[in-house]
Each structure stands twice: as C-alpha cells, then as structure tokens.
C-alpha cells in the first residue's frame, strides 16, 4: 500500500513537555508538508520540505521544528508544548513538479 503514514494517531501530554510525531510517505514524492488543523477545522501550512530545502511559515513558533532523514520521512518536533498547540497535525506529500497533495490521517495532540 502506498500512502502517507503518521504515528501516533493520538497523543496527550502536559504543558512544557517535548513531543515528536512521525510521518512516512511511500508514494515516491519529492515534497512533504506539515499542516496544523485547529478545533475550528482551519488548515494552516507549517512547513514545506523539498530536496533538503525547508520553507517555513513565518507564523510558526520556533518551538516547532521539522526533522528529515530522507525524502520519504518528515517528522515534527515540538520542544515545549503549550495549550494552543492542541490540534490535529496533518502530514502530506506531493510530486515535485505537480501540485496534487496527498494527506495522512493526522495526529491529534491534546495538551493538558
């Protein structure tokens, strides 16, 4: 099966902790993304990663950082979580020259 896989599905943590989410795509795509979906279903791009070039949305707090070992993997680390980080984090990928984007099922983060 080829798709975008995210782990874990859910994660509950306390304020100030560090968390890390994994994402792997088996579609052979060149570009990967992290989106944040808030409680109102609003989707915001956080990062784009293509050929080791990272494009960061300027509104993303610095406690968020993407980590990539190869073009099939793009993990997300949050250094010290805050309550407003509670959201669903969606990983996605796309072929380099095309624009169709394929999404994983998301990781739901709850910060207590």
């Amino acid at each position, binding site marked *: 099966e080829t798709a975008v896989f995210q782990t874990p599905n859910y994660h509950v943590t306390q304020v100030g902790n560090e968390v890390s989410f994994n994402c792997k795509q088996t579609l052979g795509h*060149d570009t990967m993304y992290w989106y944040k979906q808030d409680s109102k279903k609003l989707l915001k791009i956080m990062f784009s990663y293509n050929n080791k070039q990272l494009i960061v949305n300027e509104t993303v707090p610095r406690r968020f950082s993407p980590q990539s070992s190869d073009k099939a993997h793009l993990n997300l680390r949050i250094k010290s979580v805050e309550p407003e980080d509670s959201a669903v984090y969606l990983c996605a990928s796309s072929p380099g020259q095309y624009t169709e984007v394929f999404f994983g099922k998301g990781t739901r983060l709850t910060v207590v």
Partner: protein
Amino acid sequence: AQSVTQPDARVTVSEGASLQLRCKYSSSVTPYLFWYVQYPRQGLQLLLKYYSGDPVVQGVNGFEAEFSKSNSSFHLRKASVHWSDSAVYFCAVSMGGGRALIFGTGTTVSVSP
C-alpha cells in the same frame, strides 16, 4: 498572495437533493484549484482538481466543479447527495511547483434523511 473564501460554514441538505458549495479565490494569476473532503477522524481526500482546459471538471463519487475566471470561482456540485456525503469540504489553491496548498475555511455538509 493567494487566498480562498468559502462563504458557507455549514450546509444542510436532504438526501437525494442537489448540492452546491461555493468557493472564490483571490490571485494575481489563475492558480491550480482543488476540492478536498474530510470525513470524521480522517485526513483529507482529493475530490477533483483543475489545472487548465475545460472549466467543468469531474471528480470522484459524482462530484463536479466549474471554474469561472471572470468570477474567480470554483464551485462544487453534486446532483443527488447520499447520507455518506456528510463531511467537511475544503477548497484549495496552489501556484504549483510543489508549493503548499492554501485552504479555505471549509464547509460542513450535513445530509439529512
């Protein structure tokens, strides 16, 4: 910069009725246009896309969309909805070349029996 507006936050339709979801975009050039659907506790799934050519594009599950350059719109339609069409629908734009999609705020569709 591009932006997308979905003016209807929530739409309720009866099963078997037709559905139209509105989407307007703002861009200096015609972007690539998409409709995605999100079922509960799922990621986003592509319904259809428009790059160029025929302004009416067909998608999965009987959905179609019509592009209008003059109106800067990309409205989604379905002739007869089923209860399983209850979901959140997102319109999105991109300038291509691997750049990220910019999403609208979504329209929640509820299909009543």
